[in-house]
Every structure is written in C-alpha cells, then in structure tokens.
C-alpha cells in the first residue's frame, strides 16, 4: 500500500513539474494552442468549394457519400478534438534523439521507467493545452453548433465517445513511442516517422471521413488501428457507428492499445539490452 502511494506521489510530482515546464514559455504556448484552429479553417473552405461545385452553387443540397456540408464541418471539428488527444508531436523523434545522444542513460540509472515518465509528461502537456484551449474550443463549437444537425448524441454514445477519445490518447502515445524506440536499432527514425505521418494523415480519417472510401479499401482501412486516432471517435459522436457494434469496436480499440503497450515495452526491453551507451 505504501509502495503504491509512493508511486502515485511520484507520478503526481512528474505531472506537476511537466506542467510547470510547459508553462515556462508563455508566448509559444499561447500561440501553439490558438494556432491549432487554423488548419481546420482551410479544410472547411476547401470542402465549402467542393460542395458548392457539386451542388452548382447550393452547397446545402449537395451530398458526398452520405455526407452533407454540415456533416462534413461537424466531422472536421470532431476530428480536431480527436487529434488533440491522439497526436504526439515530437514524441518519436524525441525518443530517437535521446537514444542517439545518450540522454536515455538517466532512465537506466534512476529508479523510474522511461515510458511511464514520458507518458506522464505527455499527459501534463495535454492537460496544459486543454486548460487553455477549452475556451476557444467552446467558442468555435458554439459558433458552429448549427452544423451539428442531429444535436447531442444519446448518453451511451457520448460515453462511448469519451472512452474512444481517452483510448486514442493511449494508442497515439504507445504507437509513436514504439516507432521512436526503433531508434535503438536504426538510431535515426525521421524517414520512418515521415512515412508513418503520411499514412496517419490519410488512414486515420484526418484528411477525409474513412467511410467515404470505396470497397475493398474501406474494409482494409477499418482493420487498421489508425482509424481510432481521428475518425472513430468522431464517427461515434455523429451516430455513424451502429449502437450494437459500439461495445465490440471499443474492445477492439482497447485491444490495439494493449498491443502497442506490449510492443513499446518489449521494444524498450530489447533496445536497452542492445544499447551501447551512445554519446559518451
């Protein structure tokens, strides 16, 4: 019991210190938080033009594979939320850099796990981000509430949405951490990361709703874990996941989370065995 409490106290301290670190550079933090909204504006304008063209000037009557213009805007706003949970900027490249420079030593000599430490630091960064971004998020959603034509989902879907979001954070973290840990073998993972980001961009649903894909690609993509990073939480919120499939899908997502937790842990263990103390 005492050991568990001491561990929790340690986690809490890491969380607080990582939070403090995040707030040191106030200007950069504020700018980074607010600028997150810019890409979505450009995407909305792009789809605006597409729907206008298809609807011959009346975009509200146009429809692309079951998506109206309102559905599309709502979808993008929701994927923005998903990605705020699941994206891990700098995680994989940071791990590879620490391996290359030898900084990783500190996790080997101190009684703390690297993955546990990085997870808590990342959680702190997300908390700091949300505590500031919640207001602009509310403002944007309030302005755009008209695009959510079906209103709020039922409570069970909402609960599924929150669960999918929380798991997308863990999935994003352990997936990127696994890529970063490949640095134990390749030292440099930037090309690998570029390929991953490319696939992530298209296959997570960040670029377009995945149910727009024709067969057999839709089935293929739905078997990959990437859809849980952006598309899937948004699809639950918009009622595009049949209620009877929700629990099963959430279990599959949980399975992927466990798979990448195990992958990252095994990669770390094997990598440390291979590690020869780069960086003097």
């Amino acid at each position: 019991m005492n050991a568990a409490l001491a561990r929790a106290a340690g986690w809490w301290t890491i969380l607080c210190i990582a939070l403090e670190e995040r707030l040191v550079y106030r200007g950069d933090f504020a700018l980074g938080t607010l600028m997150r909204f810019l890409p979505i504006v450009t995407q909305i304008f792009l789809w605006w033009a597409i729907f206008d063209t298809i609807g011959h000037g009346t975009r509200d009557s146009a429809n692309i594979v079951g998506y109206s213009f309102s559905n599309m805007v709502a979808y993008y706003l929701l994927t923005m939320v998903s990605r705020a949970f699941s994206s891990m900027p700098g995680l994989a490249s940071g791990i590879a850099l620490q391996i290359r420079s030898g900084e990783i030593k500190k996790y080997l000599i101190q009684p703390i796990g690297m993955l546990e430490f990085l997870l808590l630091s990342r959680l702190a960064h997300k908390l700091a981000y949300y505590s500031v971004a919640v207001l602009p998020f509310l403002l944007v959603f309030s302005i755009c509430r008209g695009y959510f034509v079906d209103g709020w989902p039922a409570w069970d879907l909402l609960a599924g949405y929150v669960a999918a979001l929380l798991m997308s954070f863990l999935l994003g973290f352990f997936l990127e951490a696994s890529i970063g840990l490949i640095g134990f073998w390749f030292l440099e993972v930037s090309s690998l990361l570029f390929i991953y980001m490319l696939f992530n961009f298209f296959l997570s649903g960040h670029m377009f709703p995945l149910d727009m894909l024709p067969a057999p690609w839709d089935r293929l993509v739905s078997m990959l874990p990437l859809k849980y990073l952006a598309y899937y939480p948004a699809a639950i919120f918009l009622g595009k996941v049949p209620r009877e499939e929700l629990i099963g899908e959430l279990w599959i997502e949980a399975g992927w989370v466990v798979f990448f937790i195990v992958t990252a842990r095994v990669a770390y263990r094997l990598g440390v065995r291979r590690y020869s103390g780069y960086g003097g």
Partner: protein
Amino acid sequence: MATIEIEKLSKSYWVYQKQEGLRASLRGLFRREYREVRAVREVDLTVEQGEFVAFLGPNGAGKTTTLKLLSGVISPSSGTARVMGHVPWQRENAYRRRFALVMGQKNQLWWDLPAQESFRLHQQIYRVDGQRFQQTLDELTRLLGVTNLLHQPVRELSLGERMKMELIAALLHSPDVLFLDEPTIGLDVVAQHAIQQFLKYYQQKRRITILLTSHYMKDVSALCKRVVIIADGRLHYDGSLSGIVDRFSGHKVVTLHLAEGQAFEQLARFGTLLEIEPPKAKLRVARRQVPSVMAALLSAYTVDDVAVEDPPLEDVIAEVFSRVDDVAVDHDVRQAVFP
C-alpha cells in the same frame, strides 16, 4: 565483502567504418565494414567501502565504459561485476536507489525549471521522506554555496553552478556509491577547487565509496589515495599516486646551479639535457646511475646548489599513456563485413 568486485570484465562493440566520399557512402548502403572496439578487457578490481579511487587513462581508454558498466547503463560482453551485492546491468530498483552517476558533460536537471523542481522530482523518484530530504538539501546547498540559486532556472546558471546542482541532485538520496565521470571538466579553477573541497569533505564525513575519472591531476591528487590506470581497455596500475612514479619512471631529474664561469656544453655527457637557464641546468638521469653521475658532476664542476627530484607526475603519466598507445596501434584489430 568488498563494495565493488569486478572480475574479468570485458566490453566490446562494433563500430561502422565509413570511408570517405560519395561512392563509399553508396557502397555502404549494401555492404558495411565494422571494426571491433574492445573498450574494456578483462579488468579485475576490488574496491572496499569508503574508498575514493581515481581512474586515470587517455581518451578512449575505457574509463567511462567501466563506469557505464558499473552503473548498469550497458551490459558487458563477458565477466562479472557486483556493486554492494547487486549485478549492475540487472538494473534492480534496490540497486538504483543506492548509487548515483554524475557525468560532467551530461545534464540531468530540467533545463527550463529551477533546480529546486528537479530536486523535488528526485525526492519522489528515490522516495526520500520529506524531513530527510529537506535536511540533506539544506546541508548540500550550504556546503556548495548555492542556497540563493535554487529558484533560478537551470539554463541561467553558470557551468560551475550547474555542476554543483548536478552533484546535489545525485546526493539527495544519500547514495552509498558515487560514480563521477570528469565532474570538473570545463570548469574554472575556482569552481574546480570548490567541487574538490566539497567532495573531499562529503566523502570523509559519509564514508561513501567514490570512483572518479578525471583528466585533471589536481582533482586526483587532492582527493584520491588510490589510483587505477586504465589504457587500451586494460588495467595497468592499481596503487598509490606516488607509487606511479616509482613504478613507471626509470629517471630522476637533477637540477644544478653552477658557480659563475662554468661551461655548460659538456653537461650532456652526464645525462639528457632538459633545460639550460644559466646558471641553472636540468638533466634527466637514469635512476640507477644517479649516485655515480652525482659524484662525477661534483668532481667536474663547482656547484652552488643541487636537487635530485622525481619527474613531475603529469609527465610520468603522459609517458605511460604514450607507451600504451604505441603498443595499441596495431593491437589485434578485428574487422567484419555485415550487410
């Protein structure tokens, strides 16, 4: 039982040999040549509790690799080591809570936050209770004179101040064994002296075991009674600092002050002339020839003053290192080609 017991410890690794030029780079995509670096070779060493031992050796001698092995950062190719009964590379938390490693060129503190925050984190990681943490912190900051710097971001501290903070972070959990890898590298003489004094006081007071690597002989002579020379991955000497001269130097330095009007030209026949600054001259003379050379000198010259001394320690050590380097140049280098 000794605190540190090392037996036939070896560490080798393969290093990619990149040839110069674009063509070689392209060839390297398919076929690479590697050279085996034998960083540590069958080192045997025993260190008792409370000893302060210096590791001396040229760059690339294997000193830091040995410290990395003992702190569990890397695993050996062969051999065994036990520190306080633990096998370091098993990285048990029970072991990690009892030692610390400080590397002069690596920063373990949070760069953008005051050192106090890193110390708070160390308190939790090492599970030091609040009262003991505060007492230790107060004592260490007072001894190192950094009490007023605790709330300043680490990035705004000078190199010397940062090293003091690194030492505090390493000692907050009161380790029984401390590994120091060039802790005074790059520091000015004032900061070097302050850290030396602190280490000396702390080690004597707490009787902890310290292994130190340093290129500064002043660090070594101020702190360590026992010295280990490592070169080319092998242990070449294990004994007292003064014993290095007896063991490795076959010469003495004779300094003569000749009376006015004496000719210096013939001095070279008594030994190797090191320096002439009339009326003073320095000669290097083989240790066993010193009595006969002195008798000959005193009968051939009118001498105002004479001194027979051991050569400076730095010179002896440099000579030892260069001898080892010469032997190592063509030493059983293994090469291999891997895809």
